[in-house]
């Protein structure tokens, strides 16, 4: 065996391979190949040592605690987005829809198929207007006109003409008319006289009042001497 042929098998021999009789014979005769074999063995030994030394590294002291922390963070039972916020929102939305459906169903079953206009009895608003300045109004007598709606037609809002400062007295009068409990003494002492249609249902006293003449504006001309009259007396005189 020559050195070239031995050199091709040198590494395998250095890695622990068995030498053939020819290789043994060459090694015993060639000092240069013996040195090359020793160098190769040292090289391989150094490679192994360097690899082992490179990998002889211990993790830091924080390695395991950090690993545990990561495990706890990653693997803990986390609340999903649905369980976190989507579930309450979905529940509220579903509840709202359910309530809406129940109300709709209830209305559709209770109410008839064709709508009926229902007007709740409500207190008619009172509009206050100052008396026209051009019309001479008696000092102590204020004429008030009240219009009430008929029983069949929808309610007609009453209209009250009230001089400034007399609102409270007119409000008492309107309440009396609305609830059919007029107290004549209450508004006569306040200096008012009622003029109104039959629908106002103030009955006899108002019927008597209507016999007095009115001016061009419809204002009842009330005689000065009639101011202290009691409505009951007026009613009796009219009848």
């Amino acid at each position: 065996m020559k050195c070239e042929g031995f050199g091709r098998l040198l590494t395998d021999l250095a890695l622990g391979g068995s030498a053939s009789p020819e290789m043994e014979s060459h090694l015993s005769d060639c000092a240069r190949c013996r040195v090359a074999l020793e160098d190769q063995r040292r090289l391989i030994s150094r490679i192994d040592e360097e690899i082992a030394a490179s990998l002889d590294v211990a993790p830091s002291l924080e390695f395991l605690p950090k690993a545990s922390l990561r495990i706890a963070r990653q693997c803990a039972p986390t609340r999903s987005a649905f369980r976190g916020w989507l579930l309450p929102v979905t529940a509220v939305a579903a509840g709202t829809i359910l309530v809406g459906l129940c109300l709709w169903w209830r209305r559709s079953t209770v109410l008839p198929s064709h709508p009926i206009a229902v007007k709740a009895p409500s207190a008619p608003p009172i509009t206050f207007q100052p008396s026209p300045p051009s019309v001479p109004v008696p000092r102590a007598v204020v004429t008030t006109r009240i219009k009430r709606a008929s029983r069949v037609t929808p309610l007609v809002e009453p209209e009250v003409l009230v001089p400034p400062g007399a609102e409270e007295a007119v409000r008492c009068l309107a309440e009396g008319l609305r609830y059919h409990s007029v107290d004549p003494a209450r508004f006569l002492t306040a200096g008012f006289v009622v003029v109104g249609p039959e629908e106002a249902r103030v009955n006899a006293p108002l019927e008597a009042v209507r016999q007095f003449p009115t001016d061009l504006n419809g204002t009842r001309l009330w005689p000065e001497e009639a101011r202290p009259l009691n409505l009951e007396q007026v009613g009796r005189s009219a009848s």
Partner: protein
Amino acid sequence: MDELEAVCETDVGDEALLEHEFEARMVESGSLAFRVAYGVLRHREDAEDVAQEALARAYRDFKKLRDRERFRAWLVRISWRLALDHRRGGKRRELREQGVAADPVPGPGVEETTAANEFRAPLWRAIDALPEKLRAVVVLAGIEGYDTHEVALLLGLPDGTVKSRLHAARRRLAEVFR
């Protein structure tokens, strides 16, 4: 109701046992996972990060592991694969190469350390150039305390396959430095 509570208590007990078992195995094999990752990345922080991720993944699937005695081999494969993925991702490549020179061999002086690094850097470049099958054998065999049989167990390969791969790897490395 009682049966349900009993089942729940049993589940809770099993969970606790599983937790304890995993903790023990994590303490036992955590360093190995780190070294395997370090063998690929050779950057301490990256290797710790990868090894911690490997442990977390192992924890998640620990229930599915039928043979708990195979935990070390299983963890090694997870760590190895994650390290390769991390390396392929190219994260911190520059830091890793600086880390080769920054991780000195403990013990020798400055001059010896420099000489060692001069040899170590091209050595690891040669190792990185090896095929993955050979590289895995070299790295695992390089970890202290692991002979061919243990490497074979870790990789799930026959002993002969590991021996032949290790021989081929060392031969290639020796040829590089010859």
